[in-house]
């Protein structure tokens, strides 16, 4: 090693700063709220040889943690094979093909070659979630698509900017195929401008420290990130750890899909073997390879947030057995659910497998669904069509330190839900309730957090409701003796009659008229540890705050609560808990 560790640290911070500034620039200038407010975007630096991740912005959407290196790798291979055009300085490629290292079609990647002294030095790339890329339904989340063509416009890597100039012909093709196209030019310009910011900052860094020093630092940092990840992996006792996570259904065929995972610690590496998982499905709950790998990486980063985002950190992680399963779907399988839902089930499988060997770090399962509810209709008062999106949070899993957080963001996202008042300003709806989903937190020594319980009424005109969610059939898994959180429940009230979607958490185009209502009760988090060991005072507090009923306190936690004001009946509680102790067979975890 010729570089001193201080120079390494300084260059590491410098590379990180380049990416963070790209993230900031992209969000601030972006047009669509999905990027500007929800930060559904990511920016990074990728190697010229194989696209491997050099650095990525800290504020990027977690699900993109690993995807762009695969998308850049595909691009490099296609350029070598002559399937994509040779790069020129100031070109920017656009690509959203899921099978070329992507996620779903809405995540549009830009890649800009970065030159030093006339040589390609690395790639700058970013991804932004566009509000629409065409397809059967506005927004792209079709719950019943059976081929990718129904999901939107699919772009292979083509140069949208040629030597700095936006190609109006390609832009015209895109604009003719997507909804609300006039606003997209704002996102295109913001996405390209962010890469330009990155180029300027990276040039400054290279000018200051020298190209060779920085190159050497990049190689060294990659190696050290791997060392650091291996040091964390060393905390895990040798052995194999298995779990299964279930996707409710694919939206077309009403059968659950299994993610079967065995994590094996071998030496200082971890193998994530998904063999035995369900085959590719007919509906849009397929994942593509890049998204599956990225989901494993993001789950590991939730467990070890200290490790920098770098290709080196992923080196000790080996993913096997996805070929032939729905976690490695091939063209033309529909994939819109991969980034929002399947990715979260993969992360859940990782958490469920590793909570036993890493009980202090890993939580019980979080709600793990983005809760996409789309309402499309015509507002007669404003004389216009609209599409409203409501995303929702859910409970997080209990963990060694705390009860789970209530109404937390999706595992793979960092976006805030819009305020009710803004929704009502923009769309002809009235919310009747926006409340804690009482009783939903999975029982445990540390219970799961609570989901959300909202109900929204259509005020005028006609509309169609679509849902792409999950965890309707199975609640988020409890851990180490904790109970599962409550499942997701969708109820549509049409002319005063309740209707539950056949797929529970997924359905498309349910007709609504004025006065009809939609109620969504999102999942609670899984409980952590035996609920019968939860301090009775904590259970009393939950009952006092009407989070659980006294009956639930008795059944789930073995705590008897009586009287007004409510108090713990110590003798009865002791009896309940003693009886449970006696009844538990050694094998029964939950």
């Amino acid at each position, binding site marked *: 090693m010729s570089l001193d560790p201080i120079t390494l640290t300084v260059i590491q911070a410098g590379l990180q700063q380049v990416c963070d500034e790209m993230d*900031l620039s992209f969000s601030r200038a972006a047009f669509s709220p999905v990027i500007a407010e929800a930060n559904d975007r990511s920016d990074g630096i990728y190697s010229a040889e194989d696209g491997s991740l050099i650095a990525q912005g800290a504020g990027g959407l977690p699900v993109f943690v690993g995807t762009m290196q695969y998308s850049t790798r595909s691009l490099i291979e296609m350029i070598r094979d002559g399937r994509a055009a040779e790069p020129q300085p100031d070109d920017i490629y656009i690509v959203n093909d899921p099978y070329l290292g992507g996620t779903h079609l809405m995540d549009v990647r830009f890649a800009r070659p970065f030159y030093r002294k006339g040589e390609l030095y690395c790639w700058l790339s970013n991804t932004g979630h566009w509000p629409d890329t065409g397809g059967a339904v506005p927004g792209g989340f079709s719950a019943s698509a059976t081929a990718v063509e129904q999901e939107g416009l699919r772009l292979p890597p083509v140069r949208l900017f040629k030597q700095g100039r936006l190609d109006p012909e390609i832009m015209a093709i895109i604009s003719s195929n997507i909804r*609300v196209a006039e606003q997209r030019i704002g996102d295109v310009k913001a996405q390209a401008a962010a890469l330009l910011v990155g180029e300027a900052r990276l040039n400054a860094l290279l000018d200051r420290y020298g190209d060779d020093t920085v190159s050497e630092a990049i190689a060294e940092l990659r190696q050290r990130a791997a060392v650091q990840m291996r040091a964390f992996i060393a905390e895990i006792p040798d052995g194999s750890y298995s779990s299964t996570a279930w996707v409710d259904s694919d939206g077309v065929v009403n059968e659950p899909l299994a993610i079967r995972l065995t994590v094996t610690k071998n030496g200082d590496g971890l193998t994530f073997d998904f063999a035995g998982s369900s085959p590719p499905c007919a509906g849009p709950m397929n994942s593509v390879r890049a998204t599956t790998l990225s989901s494993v990486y993001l789950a590991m980063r939730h467990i070890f947030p200290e490790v920098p985002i770098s290709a080196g950190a992923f080196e000790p992680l080996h993913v096997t057995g996805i070929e032939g399963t729905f976690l490695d779907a091939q063209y033309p399988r529909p994939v819109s659910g991969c980034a929002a839902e399947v990715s979260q089930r993969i992360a859940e499988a990782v958490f469920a497998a590793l909570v036993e060997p890493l009980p202090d770090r890993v939580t019980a399962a979080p709600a793990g669904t983005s809760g996409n509810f789309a309402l499309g209709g015509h507002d007669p008062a404003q004389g216009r069509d609209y599409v409203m999106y409501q995303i929702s949070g859910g409970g997080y899993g209990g963990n060694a330190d705390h009860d789970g957080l209530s109404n937390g963001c999706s595992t793979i996202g960092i976006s805030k839900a819009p305020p009710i008042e803004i929704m009502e300003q923009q769309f002809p709806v009235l919310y009747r309730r926006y409340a804690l989903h009482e009783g939903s937190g999975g029982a445990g020594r540390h219970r799961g957090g609570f989901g959300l319980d909202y109900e929204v009424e259509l005020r005028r005109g006609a509309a169609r409701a679509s849902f792409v969610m999950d965890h309707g059939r199975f609640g988020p898994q409890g851990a180490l003796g904790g109970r599962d959180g409550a499942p997701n429940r969708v109820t549509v009230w049409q002319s005063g009659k309740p209707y539950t979607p056949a797929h529970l958490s997924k359905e498309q185009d349910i007709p609504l008229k004025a006065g009809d209502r939609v109620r969504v009760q999102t999942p609670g988090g899984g409980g952590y540890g035996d609920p019968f060991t939860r301090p009775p005072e904590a259970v009393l507090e939950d009952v006092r705050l009407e989070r659980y009923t006294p009956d639930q306190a008795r059944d789930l936690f073995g705590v008897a609560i009586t009287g007004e004001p409510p108090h713990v009946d110590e003798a009865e509680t002791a009896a309940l808990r003693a009886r449970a102790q006696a009844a538990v067979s050694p094998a029964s975890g939950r």
Partner: protein
Amino acid sequence: MTDQTSGAVAGVDVGGTFTDLLELDQRSGRVRLAKVPSTLENQAFGVMDALRAADCDLAALDLIVHGTTTTTNAVLERKLAKTGLITTQGFRDVLELGRRTRPRPYGMKGSFTPLIPRDLRLEVPERMDSDGQVVVPLDEAALRAAGERLLAQGCEAVVVHFLHAYANPAHEVRAAEILREIWPNDHITMGHALLSESREFERGVTAAANAAVQPLLDRYIRRLVRELERGGYRGDVLVMNGNGGMVSSSRVALEAAKTVMSGPASGVMAAAYTGRRARQENLITYDMGGTSTDVALIRGAEPTVSNEIEIEYAMPIHVPMVDVRTVGAGGGSIARVDASGLLEVGPESAGADPGPICYGRGGMRPTISDANLILGRLDPSRLNAVEGGVTVEAVKEIFARELGAPLGLDAVGAAEAVIRVANMKMAGAIRMVSISLGADPRDFALFAFGGAGPLHACALARELGIPHVLVPARPGITNAIGCVVADLRHDFVTTINTPLDQLDPDRLHAVFSAQTAEGEALIARERVEIRDIRHIYSVDMQFVGQTHLLRVPLERPDVDLATLRRLFEAAYFNRFRVELSDIRANVVNVNCSVIGARAELDLSALIDPTGRKATLEEAWIETRPVHFDGGWRDVPVYWRDHLPERFVLDGPAIAQQMDTTVLIAPGDVAHGDGDGNILIEIGGAA
């Protein structure tokens, strides 16, 4: 009305550790200073101690301006008055559910405690829609019953927070009327009163914070005023708000939430004032203390004010406040070597207890302050003064073992590495703050204060390409100076949310007129002499379809729509380098700040002119070895209070004063000015 500001003014700022006082007597030119430990249970004791320590004659004082952390601490530690919420049926959990977030992007742990617990959040039938039309009338009997139930549960304050009250406050106003009939005190907060903007979580949290700190602030201010009067004080007490303006003690509790962040705001106000007098009107303030560093931006001598500040995770207090960002490292930030063999500094901090190793309170982990000590930047001879103190050798031993060994460096090399990494990280954080506010740091001077700011400022400025560093006369009591120089200030935000092409310009002008009139009326009620009244006008705009806002400053309120469009597009291009002339624009908020500017204060006595020496040689204390860029240099150390008025000093040099050390790096040149500031020219940018 007596002209109070021309007499003796005392600024008292209560911080987390110390209570600082500055008394400025404009007639005699006398300055008194004090720094005493804060008394956090009842901050009034510390205030009285400070007045005693400075030997202030309360009867002769004309005005006291007070910065307090009473409300900040109450919110952050959730030591709040028992407060109830009455809200729209179906929405009592809004304050607990938040916006679907988690504390950090990675890591699925975390917890959140709402300001008002669930059993004290009650619902009543009532509903407005977004146009302010009544959907469900207010159930007055249910409202009354809810109020009585909260009283029976022991609530001292109450919030009424109804959906869409910003569009039509009628239900909130009526509810407050009913509550006044039964509520035993004035602690009734209406959700729309502080913040009349849509977004129910943010508005609700702001109102809840206000209600929950109101009784505490009210009691505290009454007690303080009583103590002061007992000591013979006859003047008014003004309290600093987070917007950097002050407000009468008799009114401050009404809008108690506005005092959250008053401390950091006073520091920034002092910076703006000092900078304007020193002809450095564009400043990045850099306040580095023991545990954290605060950064703010000042343009044209006006601090950046935001009404979207989140004071901690899921705790938005959306009243106009000086936009102060905490960027992490402080003198107590801990350095360690991680599993990959790389040096990390922070975010873990040794805090005040045990603090850095060199405090001698049992700290055993290397910190930034310890590194400064090893490098000779902090005075090693001061260590011996501490009871049970440690030696530099002991600190070096820990550095060599904890950091040096894994990095392959000696103790000095390790200390240098800690400073280098810390400065790099702080510079990066400052750069991000400045870019996120649309500013290039190179267009600013760095205003360094706090205990540790002036030690690091030259290195940061060099890293950031900032040409000048300004160190004020009294970096350790900057917040108290901010109190003394603060103006009266009232900020107004009115949401109109109208597309520009549908906006009636008369409506816009009427909003500005109403805001101006209200602000001027409030200022006229204060017993403070005003030199002149200034207005700051702006609108918050966006392109239709966007969610974030861009503030467009206006020179005058009677702007026409074509000009507004042009100004917005120019501001947008300036910020994002993106031109979007084909898209319609929205005017969201109309903002006006009315500022009652007080008479100019003379700051030249902050460093006692009679204590100054005629030559640099006379101000010299010693020459000690200080480590820079891989080598030791003999560096002259001067007692700052003895420096001649307009000195010129080539770096490397150190100016030492009671509570701060100013480090002038090699290649930099320091100049003294009449107000006692040091302006450092940074030689050769990075």
